[in-house]
Every structure is written in C-alpha cells, then in structure tokens.
C-alpha cells in the first residue's frame, strides 16, 4: 500500500511542479467553451435548434461534453509520463524495487485519474457562470462518473505507453484516438443527428457514456440518451478493466521491452 500512496503522491508533485501544464489544461477547455461554444450558440438560437440539442441552448448542451472531453484527453495523455520515465530511466528504479508492481502502477494511474478529475471540477466551476441552465446538483455525480472514465483512459494510456519505446509512437496513438473519439461521443453534436454508421461507432466509444451521464446529471434526464445504469455500469467495467490491463502489462515488464 505504501507503494500505491507514494506513486500517487509523485504524480501529484509532478503535476503541480509543471505550472505551464496546469495552466494549459484549464485554458484549453475554456477556449472550446468560449470561442467554439459561444460562437455556435449564436448560430443555434432557433427553436428548431433548441429541439435538436434536447431543449436547451447550445452552450448548456456543450458544457458536459467539454467536461468529459477534458477528462478523456488529459487522462489518456497521462501515458506520456510513462514514456518519459522510460527515457529518463526512472522506470528502472521502480522495476528493481521490492514493492508489488501492481501497487506502484495502480497508484500512478489512480493518481492521474484523480488529478484529471480535479481539473474537471475546475472546468465545471468555470462553466457554470457561462451556461446558466446547468444544474449545480449534477456536479458531484458527474465528477464520480468522470473519475471512472479517467481511470479507464489513464489505464489504457499507461498500458500502451508501457509497450512503447518512443514518444512519437505514443503521439501517433493520441492522434488516432483523441479527435475521432471526441467527435464520435456526442460531446459536440447529438448522436441522434449522426448517420447510422457513425452512431454505431459512437455506441462503441466509452467517451459517449461519460458525456451522456454528465449530461443527464448537469442538464437533465431529457438531454440524455441512455439509462444511468448503462452509463455507470459500462464506465465502471472499463475503468477497472483498463486498470487491470495496465497492472498486467507492468507486472510482466522487463528491460527487454
């Protein structure tokens, strides 16, 4: 358990040490919300548009999407720190230690997921004044749901990074995954408006269920597409599943790659 808590602590230390990163992580979602969200909300003012977005203004529709998107991309990008640890050699320090490897890798992933969830909190707090229709009561459950998704993608990112030698390889995955999954999640436009084949892809996208759950809590049941049970169930399964995947990948890790 000591290895779990100290690796958690290390992620926290490193996070707050990288000030530029902290700022970027807050500023980035705000750019989406302000320049993307405010702009389009002027376009989508007709009653017809409100109907498409579940009876709310576009900014309110978008806000849970930006929240989930931030958690998703930031947690997945957490895998980069594993690659740095490989390149700067710190990973060897962990590999040669007697502490259970499952505890040290889990500590780091849960640490990442927690930090990312805190960012999500900051993003939401900044969003409330802009999107008036959001329900403050939805904040807490959204954060918990978001944490599960962050766990899933931090786990996936870590597992992938453990298999990779270079930053470039991981960046390729980031490119392949982050933008498409974001567009295919219903974060920016409703799933109902997508063509059939795209809807099928959206259903296979874990991010979809985080967006849906957050929208359920923050906007209202009418804005959601799936049941809360499905959102929670799937994200719980994926969170634990990818965490386990990373643990297994790290248990077997040797210097031979």
């Amino acid at each position: 358990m000591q290895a779990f808590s100290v690796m958690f602590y290390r992620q926290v230390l490193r996070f707050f040490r990288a000030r530029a990163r902290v700022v970027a992580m807050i500023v980035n979602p705000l750019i989406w919300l302000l320049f993307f969200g405010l702009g389009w909300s002027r376009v989508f003012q007709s009653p017809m548009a409100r109907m498409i977005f579940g009876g709310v203004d576009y900014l309110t529709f978008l806000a849970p999407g930006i929240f989930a998107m931030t958690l998703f991309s930031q947690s997945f990008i957490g895998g980069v720190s594993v690659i740095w640890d490989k390149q700067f050699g710190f990973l060897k320090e962990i590999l040669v230690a007697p502490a259970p490897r499952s505890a040290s890798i889990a500590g780091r992933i849960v640490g990442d997921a927690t930090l990312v969830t805190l960012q999500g909190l900051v993003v939401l707090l900044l969003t409330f004044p802009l999107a008036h229709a959001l329900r403050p009561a939805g904040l807490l459950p959204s954060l918990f749901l978001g944490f599960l998704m962050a766990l899933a993608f931090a786990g996936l990112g870590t597992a992938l990074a453990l298999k990779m030698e270079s930053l470039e390889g991981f960046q390729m995955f980031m490119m392949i995954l982050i933008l498409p999954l974001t567009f295919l999640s219903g974060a920016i436009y409703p799933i109902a408006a997508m063509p059939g084949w795209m809807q099928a892809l959206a259903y296979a996208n874990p991010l979809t269920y985080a967006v849906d759950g957050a929208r359920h809590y923050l906007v209202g049941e009418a804005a959601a597409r799936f049941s809360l049970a499905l959102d929670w169930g799937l994200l719980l399964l994926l969170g634990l599943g990818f965490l386990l995947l990373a643990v297994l990948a790290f248990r077997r890790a040797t210097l031979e790659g």
Partner: protein
Amino acid sequence: MQPAILAEGLKKRFGPVEAVRGVSFAVRPGEIFAFLGPNGAGKTTTVHMLTTLLRPSAGRAEVAGFDVVRAPTEVRRRIGVVFQDPSLDRELTARENLYIHGRIYGLGGAALRAKIDEVLDLVELRAAADQPVKQFSGGMRRRLELARALVHRPRVLFLDEPTLGLDPQTRAHVWDYIRRMKAEAGLTLFLTTHYMDEAEQLADRVAIIDRGTIVALGTVAELVRRIGGELLYLRLEGGAGCRPLPGVQSCRELPDGRLLLEVEDAASALPRVLEALLAAGIRAREVTLRRPTLNDVFIRLTGRELRDELTRPGATAWMRRR
C-alpha cells in the same frame, strides 16, 4: 560462509547476440568485487541479471542467498543499484527523490527523514537537497544516485560504471564515497568499470570480462603477477622490430612503433638488452620502465587494449581473432 553473490554459468542471449556467455564467480560478503571490461563486454547485462531485471537465458545466480529468478522480491529487498544510465526523477528535488525511494522500500516517518539527511551528508549534497535534479551537474546526479541506493540499507550494492563521464576530481570523490560505504559493516559491493585504475583503486578482487566471458579473476596483485615480471618500453632507431634478446620473456610491437618487452627484473635486464642491441648496431632512442598494470594483463589475455581510446587502427595487426 555463504557468498553475497553467486553466479553459475550465467548466460544471456539477445536474439543472435550472446551478450554473456556463461560467467561463474562468487563474491564474499563485505568485499568490493569489480567487473573490468571494455565496451560491450557484457557488464551491464550481468548486472541486470543479478538485479532481477533480466532473466538469464541459462545458468543461475543467487544474491544475498536468494535465487534471482525464483525469489526476485527477496533479492530486491536486499540490494541497492546504481544503474549505468541515470534513473532519477529530474522534475523532483534531491530530497523528494530520496523520500519517494524510501517510501517505495517501505520506510517512513522520522527514521526515513534521518536516513535521508545521513546519505545526503555522505555524498555532500545537503546544501543542494531542495533543488530540482534537472539543475544538477552530472557529478551531483551520480552522487545522488549513490545516496539513493543506500537509503534502504541494502546488503549488496551494485554500481554499474559509477564514475562514467565524470572529471578526475569528481571521480576521486566518488571513489572516496565508495570506500566509506564499504566501511559500513556488512556491505558488499559489486561494481563494473572499464577504467583499470578504478578497479585497482577500489576492488578487493577483479574479474576481467571480455566478449561475455571472464578471462581472469583474482586480486589486482594476483592478476598482475601473471605477467610474471616487469615491462620495458623501447623505441629503437630506425623503427627496428622485435628480435631475440637476452633475458626477455616476450616482445610485442606497439601501434606507436615502440617495443613492449616483458622481463623478470628490469633493473638487471636493461643493461644486457641495450648491450645486445648495440652489438647488433641498433641504438635505443627512448626507454621506459613500468610495473605491469591490469591493462597489461588485459592485453596479455585478449590481445587488445582495455582502454578503447588507446586502440589505434594499427593495433588490429596483433589482435587475436576469434
């Protein structure tokens, strides 16, 4: 007494490359044991096998009484490692690096804080303790790695090229720390190096490793005695080569044009050698007398220079082919 490290027929193959070709040795508790060999000899690979990071392809090894493959956790509990390549967290301070290390090894509280101060003092980094490691010089980082490896009081300490790339003063410092560490009761040290003076300065016993095999093992004095006598370097007028000379056990032409003669006792052999040369009409332009070093042992055993920077293209002429 149970050896601190025991290796029996240890081998490691990476695809077509056989990096370590069956090494066997035993390190006694409390001794400093050095692996001396050129680049690519298999030193790091051996360290990685002994520290449970690589699985041997064949053979077995025990460290502190535990098998490295069957009981890796027990081995890890009892060893400290300074890797050849850096392994610090550069974003964190020295103290944070040591703290995280201690916690991973199950330490904590006041005992850990005291131990951290103690090791920082040992390597004289107390003043820089709260600076991020990325601001450290190479020598400071190396010293911090040494300190970190001691935090959890290991029984066996592995140092893979502890002074690689350091300037002479820093190297002397690090040697000093290593000697002080040895003075701590019960600590066994396994170090690798390709500096012969490092092995001569520090090691109780030295294994010379070349191309994955141990070619000689013993104390520095024992190894040097294998040369049998003393060495004379001669530069002859007109670049004359080797020829039979009285009292000379062997003669080799060096890449720089000098002759390297092995003699039993240089003081008595030199006048006779010079006389014989004069009788043949050859004058010596330069004479150097030297006691043999580990480098000479290495040349004798492998036909090559240990210090790669001394190997010149002409040296291939007398390289032993395998």
